């Protein structure tokens, strides 16, 4: 074990990759699930020990294959990406026990092993994007996770899942290609692909007057915005989340867009630096406007949506708006709010999507009208929905309140106080769309369909309750979430770290 310790950064990516190969060879869904569960449980152990190392002794630089950067590929773990690694792997591990019954019910028996294989590949890609310090390597991992995501979505039973996967494939590939164009332009200017090295070679003097650098920034911003579904580049997301198998929706909603946000943070603050990102192009203003538009328009669309799964997808778009709002504020409190919300939103959306997975498992529908009275039949499950829903709204005592608090402080510090009212007003919209589901689920007479339903088996119930409990826990104990986020924000704004 001790000999493996220095290689933890590589193991973080290699273990799920090997796991994906092995699950692909299996015939039975249950054995594939068991292996995927094992891998998913190892991941947070590695991520947490990396985080502890970073907290103890500063950033880790791992040279892949012994080739020194900037020639070789460097895996670079600092506070920000160690935090994201813990988030992605932790949420994935917490959800994994849920998968067995849910996937067995929603995916054809002969395709279940493939499903887990694709899930592990997707996890490989997401962890790889997060851990690597090489701009082109990010593209490769991005495509690994994206290609496996298209398959995960297409495995949904509804035929509309196929069209959703196709649309996502088109949009996702355009986004990734924009990213490659941006990296190519940066390479032409700097002659380097290592993120740290690019940042050092992009002296402020070169950058201000250099048109290719600004073009690269524009290409990268648009490409990544497509991946993280920033309004109005979001059209692929609602259908993809609505028709994918429940477990895939929950996993993607919690992790995929968050990792894209991480790449955006890395580009804006570590590669280009605040001076280029926000001074030479009006990115801050544009992103602010789009974020506010997302917060309102997506929430309004959520209010009128009849399919609850798609309602949550629209809600995700709105919540991504809060995260990008924090980025566009670009001060310490705002950025902390963005990073904390990235963390908190992952936990609460995972809980909400898993609740719907349990509902689909019991009554075979997620249409709002079919959920009438389900709260009385499945009290624990729908109780978790209420708790996580309160967190989405941002009620005090839940995780959502913490992130919105930081965002509001950030807006105040900038002197943009009308923004505080906009944050509050858009939270009221969340009250409406979450309240609508709660009203139907708890205060209506159970329909025929619902009368037979009961809380799901323990393997499905526990992940739901743990994640819902976590939204309360992180509303009180903010040392881990907000503490690390504010340190990471401080480091990002301090320039190259």
């Amino acid at each position: 074990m001790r000999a493996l310790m220095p290689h933890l950064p590589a193991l973080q990516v290699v273990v799920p990759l090997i796991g994906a190969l092995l699950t692909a060879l299996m015939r039975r869904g249950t054995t594939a699930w068991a292996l995927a569960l094992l891998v998913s449980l190892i991941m947070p152990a590695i991520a947490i020990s990396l985080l502890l190392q970073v907290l103890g002794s500063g950033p880790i630089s791992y040279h892949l294959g012994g080739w020194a950067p900037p020639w070789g590929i460097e895996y670079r773990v600092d506070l920000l990406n160690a935090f994201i690694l813990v988030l992605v792997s932790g949420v994935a591990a917490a959800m994994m026990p849920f998968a067995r019954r849910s996937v067995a019910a929603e995916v054809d028996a002969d395709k279940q092993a493939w499903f887990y294989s694709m899930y592990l590949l997707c996890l490989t890609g997401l962890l790889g994007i997060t851990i690597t310090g090489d701009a082109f390597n990010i593209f490769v991992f991005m495509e690994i996770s994206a290609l496996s995501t298209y398959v995960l979505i297409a495995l949904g039973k509804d035929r509309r899942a196929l069209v959703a996967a196709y649309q996502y494939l088109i949009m996702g590939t355009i986004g990734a290609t924009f990213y490659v164009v941006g990296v190519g332009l940066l390479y032409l200017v700097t002659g380097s692909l290592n993120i740290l090295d690019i940042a050092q070679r992009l002296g402020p003097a070169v950058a201000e007057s250099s048109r290719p650098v600004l073009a690269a920034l524009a290409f990268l911003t648009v490409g990544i915005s497509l991946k993280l579904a920033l309004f109005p580049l979001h059209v692929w997301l609602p259908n993809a989340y609505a028709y994918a198998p429940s477990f895939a929706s929950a996993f993607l909603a919690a992790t995929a867009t968050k990792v894209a946000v991480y790449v955006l943070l890395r580009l804006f603050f570590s590669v280009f630096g605040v001076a280029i990102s926000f001074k030479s192009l009006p990115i801050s203003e544009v992103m602010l406007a789009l974020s506010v538009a997302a917060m309102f328009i997506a929430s309004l669309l959520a209010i009128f949506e009849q399919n609850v799964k798609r309602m949550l997808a629209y809600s995700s778009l709105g919540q991504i708006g809060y995260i990008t709002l924090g980025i566009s504020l670009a001060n310490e409190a705002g950025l902390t709010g963005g990073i904390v919300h990235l963390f908190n939103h992952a936990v609460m959306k995972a809980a909400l999507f898993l609740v719907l997975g349990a509902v689909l498992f019991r009554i075979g529908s997620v249409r709002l009208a079919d959920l009438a009275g389900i709260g009385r039949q499945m009290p624990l499950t729908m109780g978790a929905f209420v708790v996580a829903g309160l967190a989405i709204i941002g009620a005090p005592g839940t995780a959502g309140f913490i992130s919105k608090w930081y965002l509001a402080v950030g807006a105040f510090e900038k002197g943009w106080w009308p923004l505080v009212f906009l944050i509050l007003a858009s939270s009221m919209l969340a009250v409406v769309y979450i309240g609508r589901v709660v009203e139907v689920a708890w205060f209506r007479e159970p329909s025929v369909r619902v009368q037979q339903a009961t809380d799901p088996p323990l393997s499905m119930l526990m992940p739901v309750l743990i994640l819902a409990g976590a939204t309360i826990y992180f509303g009180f104990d903010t040392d881990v979430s907000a503490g690390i986020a504010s340190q990471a924000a401080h480091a990002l704004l301090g320039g190259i770290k």
Partner: protein
Amino acid sequence: MEVVKVFAGYYNYGVTIFLMVAGLYIVIARGNLIKKLVGLSLFQTSVYLLYIEPAKIIGGTAPIIDPAFKLYSNPLPHVLILTAIVVGVATLALGLALVVRIHEAYGTIEEEEIFAREGEE
């Protein structure tokens, strides 16, 4: 003369940008799912040119250190694009596979007809 020089200097970039925009236009403007993939492929391929053109030096050889050669091409972009080609092939294959499944499920690969059939449900 100056104009010709500028034109010759940027000629290859012009071709790259034309292919890029043409590919993107096809993706947006065409309703046929296969034609969209053709456009997407064109768009991706144009980026390969963006990487390869500046890396190729006329008269340069592969970077094998030998006293007989003085001028080398940059190998790194070539290798990067090799990776990108693999990604492009995988994307195209998956896209085509999805179109086959969509055709099985809907009996058409025209976007408008698919959306029309969604509306009937």
